[in-house]
């Protein structure tokens, strides 16, 4: 029997960087993908048996310009323009695990430029969704989930797939890019994960 813990997520400013190399503009992902929230929770609660995804219901887009410094030469590099999601409200769905007692309310840091003050999120428990209560429907997926974990999130069928990769660390220094279903894919799955 699968059940999920639904948390409300609030953040003043969040940068969920897309994987772009060598560009002066850094866009932010507009959904809370499996890798970001799962790795964040695993780090806090110290377990590899955590799986979670999130949906962003509201955000504004603003831009932050900063210039990273070269530590060796002590000079600034070309300024980067970073997309920042502000006044973010979202939902996080954590697959319930009997080994971990998630608190009713906690703080977590997600995304990029945490040292500059971004990424602080407040998670507040809202609801436990039991398997019997989950409405399964056909619709457009609103988050990013690795293919190998689709079953954990009750994705019954993929009708139309948009693929991409999410990063899963395998050690402190390495990891694998795992094939994932991205937002915009058409699936049969839980209503709360659909647009």
């Amino acid at each position, binding site marked *: 029997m699968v059940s999920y813990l639904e948390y409300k997520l609030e953040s003043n400013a969040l940068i969920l960087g*897309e*994987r*772009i*190399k*060598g*560009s*002066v*503009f850094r*866009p932010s992902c507009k959904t809370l993908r499996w890798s970001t929230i799962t790795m964040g929770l695993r780090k806090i609660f110290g377990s590899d048996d955590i799986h979670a995804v999130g949906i962003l219901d509201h955000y504004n887009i603003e*831009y932050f310009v900063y210039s990273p410094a070269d530590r060796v030469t002590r000079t600034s590099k070309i300024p980067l*323009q970073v997309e920042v999601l502000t006044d973010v409200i979202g939902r996080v769905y954590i697959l319930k695990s009997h080994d971990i007692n998630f608190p009713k309310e906690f703080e977590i840091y997600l995304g990029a430029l945490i040292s500059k003050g971004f990424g602080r999120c407040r998670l507040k428990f809202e609801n436990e969704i039991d398997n019997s209560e989950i409405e399964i429907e056909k619709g457009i997926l609103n988050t990013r989930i690795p*293919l*190998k974990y689709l079953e954990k999130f009750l994705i019954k069928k993929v*009708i*139309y*797939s*948009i*693929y*991409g*990769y999410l*990063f899963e660390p395998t050690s402190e220094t*390495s*990891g*694998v*890019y*795992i*094939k994932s279903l991205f937002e915009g894919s*058409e699936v049969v799955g839980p209503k709360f994960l659909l647009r």
Partner: protein
Amino acid sequence: MKESNLVWKNTNKNVNSEEKEPVPEIHDIGKLINREATEIEHNFENYPGKLQGLPEIKENATWKGIREHHCQLPVERREKVLEEYPKSKETVILAIADSLASVVSRHIKIGGHPFYNVYKLWNPTQNITRLSNAIRAHSMGKEWIEKIVNFVNKNPSKEEYFQEFGAYLEKRCEDASPGCNITSLLTHSILVGKFYRVLKKIEIPLQIDFRNAKKEEICDLVNKKLPSLIKLTIIKCKIKLPQYIHRTRDLNIFKIREELLRKFQEKYPEVFFRTSDEMIIFSKDDSILDEIKNKIKKYGLIIEITKTISKLEKEDFKNNFIKVLFGRGEKKEVLYSKDPEDEIPSNIGICEVCQLSPVKSYDILSDDEKKLLVDEKGRTDNLCESCIEIRKYGESLSLLSKWEEGNVAWIKITLDFMKLVEKLKMLYKEYITGLGEKDVERYIEIRPSLISEFQLDYNKFLNQFNEKIHQNFDGEEKRVQDVLEDLYCIKINKLSEIVKILEIYNELIGEFFPKFRETSQFSNSPVRFVISCSNVKFPFFEHWRHLENPKYDVEVILIGKGKIELELNKLSKLLDIKLKEKTALEKLGNISEISEQLAWMQIFSEEGVKYYPELQKALRQGFKLSSLLTYIKIISD
């Protein structure tokens, strides 16, 4: 006269002519002759009628097609029916193709005097009741008829036909019944040609002895039995780009995609409509896509297919066509050039451009390939095999790669097929209502012919835009980089040059699609226009996000500085706003950088009455403050 009629009788039994293919496009050439005045039916079955001294018909397969492309029985239509009917497999197919390509179902004709001109729903004119006036040729004159008969006698090709008569076909509607005159004979002829060639590839169950069959029997076959037996696959095929394109040298992918689609359309008559990224195909099955699926593999493109199988019965066919056009076919799938691997180790890495394939190892790259990966600053890109192939493809955009500094404006014109259908429905309803009909709902149907008619004008509109943009921005220095037929990049010296681009677009909308200006909250323009402006070094993918999916009829984005979002009906009003107080506007611009609300208060303050009366008026007309403030930034530069 008798002699000519005899020619018909003799040629009906001419076995040789049945063995040759008619040129289906020419089947309606008789509609260029005034039937009321000459009494010559458009299928020439009674040629030369009461007229004398006209050339004789020299029988060929095309004449047979002209004569036999209708299959009318008195029970189907109250008016006098044509006597001739299909008497060979070719003319049976031609009759079915003609019916598929007609603008409306036969049962929805409104009575009244015929209108011979094409009433373009998006750019309407007065209806014309004289054929000669509509086509601007003496349509009942002997010389004209002689020209037509002699032309067909030569057994011309479709190319010769369009060259000789294209201009007249463009002006004459296919069906002159009031309310049906919404597509041209040119569009109809092209579509009949396409449907004919598609149907020829299908095994048609024709077990009939044409020599002994009665007209009723053949009419039943052509109008009822075959349309319910024959099936066509209707396919919408969209070719999508792999994800982020951030280097200008990867823009080759646009050229590759457009060329793939263009060449495919040239090769297959099955392609009925094409834009720079999608096609609508009518085919016997979906095996037609095998070739394109094969070709996209090399470049890592993604193909999105929506399809459905339809009978040829009019209602069925029309509904299925609209379903596919709206992306609601029975089967929808996305095919990747190759299925992405389940896992890619981080030490190999994923391609920095498409992010869908492993990086091709640097060690196995050829020297030429290695050169392609290094940019002007010596940085090396890690790319997959497909993305390297894209860089190998021809020259990249030559002007764009030379521009080192300054601003550029990316321009994209987008046609939204779904919105187009909705808009055409609305405009058709308006037209029929204007003809005095009350029960209009049953008349409203959008068939492939109308979309095709629109596309002819849309292509002209794109050509005109291209011409005017080059005229205005190319001088000694070439400043316009053509990317696609609907995508440009212009080097701009001042932001205020954006106004000129908007003026060109606005002028052409007025010339080609004035009805699209009648927008509302529920009915936006199907043609959308986006300008996205930034420093030349700004990554293209960020522009592309705005250009690819426009949310408003007109959008101007100054990246990081603001945007204009407009309905099309407000564009003229925006361009008419005359702002004189430069210092005050600059001050307002500065205020808006801190707070838009503060700028709003400033406009409606006592000072505002003096300095910003035009802005006050515009805000009352429903303009967004953010759009106006961005417009101020543009014109103040």
